[in-house]
């Protein structure tokens, strides 16, 4: 009798141990931002005429910690059959990027960088204040201790990027603060 009871208890414990795996429990801010950047790339489709073959390039401008975190995140991964590479770039060589993560620029300078892309199909991402409202595509921000993101759908359309509805359903949808060409 008592063995049967223990058996049931242990079976229950084993079943509990088999239940769904856990989330990542702790994350540094850079690791979390890098994971978001990688995730954005998985939810985007680039126009067919943009860099048809070769790897998918995630460029990082202005933040070595994120670049290092992305190195670890993308290692050995592929998006839509394309290998993913992380590239540290300068502000004057951005057109080879599929995704551009930039940070640490004031509003005026980041505006110049966005304008410099001339609506090229680059998924721009930043954690700068009101980045998406300033014409960027995805802006990350912290709210209530959790990471959130805003998407500027018009900016994505200008860059001829298609973003999945799953991504948009999780985003705060924003509009341009100012008119863009």
């Amino acid at each position, binding site marked *: 009798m008592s063995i049967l009871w223990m058996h049931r208890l242990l079976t229950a414990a084993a079943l509990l141990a088999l239940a769904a795996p856990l989330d990542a429990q702790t994350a540094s801010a850079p690791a979390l931002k890098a994971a978001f950047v990688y*995730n954005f790339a998985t939810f985007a489709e680039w126009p067919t005429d943009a860099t048809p073959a070769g790897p998918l390039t995630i460029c990082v401008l202005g933040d070595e910690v994120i670049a290092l975190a992305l190195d670890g995140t993308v290692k050995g991964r592929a998006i839509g059959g394309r290998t993913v590479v992380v590239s540290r770039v300068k502000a004057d060589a951005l057109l080879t990027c599929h995704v551009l993560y930039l940070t640490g620029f004031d509003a005026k300078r980041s505006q110049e960088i966005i304008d410099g892309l001339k609506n090229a199909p680059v998924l721009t991402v930043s954690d700068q204040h009101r980045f998406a409202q300033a014409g960027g595509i995805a802006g990350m921000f912290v709210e*209530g201790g959790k990471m959130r993101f805003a998407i500027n759908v018009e900016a994505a359309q200008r860059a001829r990027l298609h973003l999945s509805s799953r991504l948009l359903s999780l985003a705060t949808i924003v509009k341009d603060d100012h008119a863009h060409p």
Partner: protein
Amino acid sequence: MTTQAHLLLGALMLSVAVPARAQTRPMDLSVATIEDLMNIEITSASRKEQRVEEVAAAVYVITHDDIRRSGMTSVPDLLRLVPGVQVAHINSNKWAVSVRGFNGLYSNKLLVLVDGRSVYNPLFAGVIWDTEDLMLEDVERIEVIRGPGAAVWGANAINGVINIITRPASDTAGLLVRAGAGTYERNNLAIRYGGTVGSGAYRAYAQLSTHGDSVGVSGADANDHWRSVTSGFRSDWTRGPNAYMVQGSVAAGEQRALWFNLDPAAGLQDTSSVSSTQAGNVLGRWTRTRASGAALQLQSFVDIGHRGESIGDYQRQTVDLDADYHSALGRRHDLVVGGGYRYIAEAVRGGPGYSFDPSRVSESLFNAFVQDEIALAGRRVKVTLGAKFEHESDDGTTVQPTARVMWNINKRQHVWAAASRALRTPSLVDKGIRINFRPTPASATSPPVFITALGNPAAQNERFISNEAGYRIDIASRIAIDVAGFIGRYQGLQTAEPSAPTVAFVDGRPVVHVSTVFDNLLDAQTRGGEITARATLTDAWQMDGSFSAFHLTPHLNAASHDPGAATFDGSAATFEWRGHSAMSLGPRVQADLLLFHVGSLRELGIPSYTRADARVEWKLTAPLSIAVQGQNLLGPAHAEFATGTTTLLSTQVPRSAALRLTWRF
């Protein structure tokens, strides 16, 4: 072996084998879904980022939204939202705040930090809240840890840690102007401007708050109005893997603090004197992060303050330097190590009837802590072992250890338990205060009685052993329930031991003199718990509520003659509950209703009360919003605390209404 034994063995092997396999695949953020990433939350329970659900401690977070929607305008009032925290109005500019009991004007078992800067007053090891008039629009969140946090934060984090975290400057860009007026919270004006320069962001702000009179015991105005001016800045910037933060503020205030005048020559209960306070601080922080998440942080602050009160004058300077390093070690260990140095200099000038010996002290405090979180059973179980070591020239070296275990049953259910030892080291008040209370008037049967309270130069540490456990469940992402329970044992709590009365003759008339000396002759056991529930009823309507229970049993020491020890109840109610309904009435209007019930404080003779607050905020245009609120709506006024033999008059909280306009550009 029998079939049952085989099954048993099989089940055992299964329960061991499954987690072991999971262990070979360490957690990887890139395989987490984006929905999961959005659930990762950040707390400071162990000086590192962690999801609230997975902290092996009783944690409650007041979010930026909670702050705005509560309508509360001061940090102590905001803490009314937290279960297990006792908040009581003493008068218009003084509060009693404690966690899990031991409440009073001089609560001394609680650590309060603003962006890592300790704001407690080393004179009595507590917080005088009137100088912490923060601009609440800039507060990102307030994390409250109930139970000892001493293993990381050190002495005085005995019953709890309150961590106020302001927003990074990058989150407060633009211009904000707030103007308000009310019947109790009087006129207030705040201006903040934030912007970016290169790779950094900054903000600067100034705030003026004026507060009206509370209601005296007789029902008349208590004449305890006050005002404060605070101005400050914060700047954050990054360069490569380095993040920097510098902030500072200056504050000045003037209060009718209602101190009893101790001078026998002055009129009886003359409480009309004006107190003035000045304070300033600067804090700098450098964080260097590696891609692995390992981070080194150096932080330093300088904090100076002055209080001029009718009963005395107090000055302090604090210089603090801290370093900590957080890194994973192998696949199982997550290590935080740190150390620090703090220099405190204090000077007190007594007034009539009130003095300190010594009146001027300085102390150097060294500390080191280590904390290791060990992942077991496929990261389902995490064991945290930690200890804080402190060395102070007078009090020697102390060790404050903790052991915590967190069992993540699955994504939605978490169970934790903890055992900790924490200490409160004696403050200057405990060691060197001398108060001559006003003599009782002579009567037909008794000559006048003089009472003197004296500190004890040999004051001991108060010792606390805490055992806690908790359970959290998330039901369909709609309802979150958090339950925590505790049993604690205190040893060497402070008592005031009376000496035998002596009779002296002054001008030929007899007077009786009784002195009391602080000693550490009370032990006590506390038991209790808190239940919190948050429910998202619809997208536009959220409710949350909590219930907390507290009971203290004093264990008298035969050597003690403290007359209050036998009836000591921790100055906390046995039961408290609170509820908050947050509703959106369309995209522009938010309506909030808050209810608080606090049971009676038996020892202090304060009856139970229920408080109701209501608030409506209407977004008139994109930059302009208007909020109308009423507080303490259920009655004209009620008392929340009695300060007993301390030297301050306690009053009643009035019913009030206020209006606030906020522009954001």
